[in-house]
């Protein structure tokens, strides 16, 4: 297939320069880290920015990124609105909370509670400099640098982020929260947050990644997370994307699961002018359970794209994928759900659903399941729907005295609720529900912006 061939795109002029700065700063001379970065550098230079001629980017034009002269976000000083950041914090409801403002850890906003014995939670930069255990074995080993320009670029530049390492049977009761906040200056800035999560055998934790930003100037967050979910362990991962609507948000999540493990990820995507998330889970063992959930809301001219892959390599695994999208104004959504069932992955159960609600005539969604099934004893189901608000339901509300605007809000809230209620953390669930309501009150129906 000619379409899937990698077509070399442009390389942003600033990229190598940013990587060079990073080289001087982090791991310079390290016998294990330097080769990882050199490889990443080669990869992103070989790949170049993807164009819409590449199948995986057919509906998402990222060419605008190549035209902006981004300055490195790390260390850019800007007045921060502490109040806005504090609203996103979990405080003592989190075991550890790391807050990075423009790529640099903000000690004052971060906090650290009691951790279970042996659990390691620290900035990734510290882990790279001060320890090799876990980080040397896994950093850059799970991310899809072969084909993903952005993941390679992230690895070559590698801004700070969360490093989590749970020893065998270590269980964290409270969630670990990492917040990346971007405060813009006059010039566009770009940051490359990087996280590494390692859950050894029989351990359990909940991790929340939050991305937020403010300001009129465009900025770019190019995030990447690798997660290693050891045998019998249980990792729950939430990602809140609440960037400014002038921002670009690109992210990669690559997960490797071992036998009998359970991984749940949740993508909540409300912000950014263009958002693209690549999520790949490798079910690399027997009897693995994996859940991929998502909720995206877009309005105005927002563009939101999720490109997911559930790769069943081992037998007797079960995966469930459930994404919902709500699109208003001229917003565009893209959802690609790939399910791969390898030859040896017999008795696979894979379920996928993507449901979308379009609130205006100009909103659009491209949704496509992609199934590649090489085993013969497999249960696989998928379904995609695109609908509008039910007129009959609206009339029912109105016939009871409820304003049509209120009725729409309640119906949209109910549509989102089916995903929101899957969030197991009450505080996060409440916040996401409140964000959905606030979004609706602020004209998610797109009438103001259409």
């Amino acid at each position, binding site marked *: 297939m000619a379409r899937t061939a990698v077509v070399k795109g442009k390389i942003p002029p600033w990229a190598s320069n940013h990587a060079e700065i990073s080289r001087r700063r982090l791991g310079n001379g390290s016998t294990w880290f330097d080769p990882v970065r050199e490889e990443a550098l080669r990869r992103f230079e070989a790949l170049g920015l993807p164009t819409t001629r590449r199948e995986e980017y057919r509906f998402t034009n990222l060419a605008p990124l190549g035209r902006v002269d981004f300055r490195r976000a790390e260390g850019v000083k800007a007045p921060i609105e502490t109040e806005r950041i504090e609203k996103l914090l979990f405080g003592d409801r989190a075991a550890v909370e790391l807050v990075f403002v423009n790529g640099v850890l903000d000690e004052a906003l971060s906090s650290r509670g009691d951790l279970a014995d042996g659990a390691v939670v620290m900035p990734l930069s510290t882990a790279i400099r001060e320890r090799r255990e876990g980080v040397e074995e896994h950093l850059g080993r799970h991310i899809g640098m072969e084909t993903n320009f952005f993941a390679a670029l992230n690895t070559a530049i590698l801004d700070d982020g969360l490093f989590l390492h749970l020893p065998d049977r270590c269980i964290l009761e409270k969630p670990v929260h990492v917040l990346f906040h971007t405060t813009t200056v006059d010039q566009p800035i770009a940051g490359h947050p990087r996280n590494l999560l390692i859950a050894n055998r029989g351990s359990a934790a909940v991790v929340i990644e939050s991305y937020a930003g403010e300001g009129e100037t465009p900025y770019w967050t190019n995030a990447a997370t690798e997660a290693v979910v050891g045998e019998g362990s249980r990792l729950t991962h939430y990602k809140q994307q609440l960037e400014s609507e002038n921002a670009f948000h690109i992210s990669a999540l690559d997960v490797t699961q071992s036998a009998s493990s359970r991984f749940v990820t949740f993508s909540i995507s409300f912000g950014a002018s263009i958002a693209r998330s690549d999520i790949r889970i490798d079910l690399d063992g027997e009897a693995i359970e994996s859940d991929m959930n998502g909720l995206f809301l877009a309005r105005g001219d927002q563009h939101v794209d999720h490109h997911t892959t559930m790769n069943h390599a081992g037998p007797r695994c079960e995966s469930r994928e459930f994404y919902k999208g709500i699109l208003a104004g001229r917003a565009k959504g893209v959802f690609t759900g790939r399910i791969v069932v390898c030859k040896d992955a017999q008795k696979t159960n894979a379920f996928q659903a993507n449901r979308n609600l379009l609130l205006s005539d100009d909103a659009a969604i491209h949704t496509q399941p992609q199934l590649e099934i090489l085993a013969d004893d497999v249960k696989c189901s998928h379904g995609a729907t695109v609908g509008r608000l039910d007129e009959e339901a609206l009339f*029912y*509300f*109105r*016939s009871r*005295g*409820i*304003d*049509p605007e209120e009725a729409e809000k309640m119906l949209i809230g*109910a549509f989102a609720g089916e995903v929101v209620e899957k969030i197991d953390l009450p505080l996060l669930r409440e916040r996401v529900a409140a964000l959905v309501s606030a979004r609706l009150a602020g004209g998610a129906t797109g009438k103001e912006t259409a």
Partner: protein
Amino acid sequence: MLNIKNLKVRIEGKEILKGIDLSIEAGEVHAIMGPNGSGKSTLANVLAGRAEYEITGGEILFEGKDLTVLAPEERAREGIFLAFQYPVEIPGVSTSYFLKTALNSIREHRGEVELDAFDFLALAKEKMKSLHMDEALLHRSVNEGFSGGEKKKNEVFQMAMLDPKLAILDETDSGLDIDALRIVADGVQQLRDEKRAILVVTHYQRLLDHIVPDVVHVLSGGRIVKSGDPDLAKKLEKEGYGWLLEESGAVAGGGN
């Protein structure tokens, strides 16, 4: 309370109501009967303000005011309630949330204070008790997965909560077994008082054994062809509509 004069209604270019005259006073219960396709449900839905119907002639006055210029929600706030023939399922919206929003919209319009969650629940429980309905319904999504009987009971419960001046029941008896029919009918009977008017649209007479109307109208071919006392309903049950259609000169199939 309700005065309909020479009402003509079209849907998708087809004339369904061809000149209806109907007058209902407070305290009265009127039944509208008629064969399938006679326009009974159209009349009920036009009163509630369903948009797809086009009024091409005549007038509808509710308490002296022109009803046709009001949006459905405004009619509800003025005191009109339609019990749906096919109540809509609303997954993800609990009955209590739905009804509290509705009730407070109506209370606000009446100049009454909003009910908070506590007061709302107390009122809802009181109404449920008198209607012999299960409180669990409040926490379930509106009509989702309800049996036909449960849906109709929920309509009557909503009616009791919203306390309308004019209640319209559109084929509320269809799809009900005897027990459900009795609960629904008893509920409607409880709401019968001198301030409220009730319009019962039905194909069968059996509901009218429980809710004995003051007047029975027969609708056929888009017109009221006969009005009379409850005995008229009994006669229709026994003898069908044929004799009436002949007598009135409206030939069978006149609805087309």
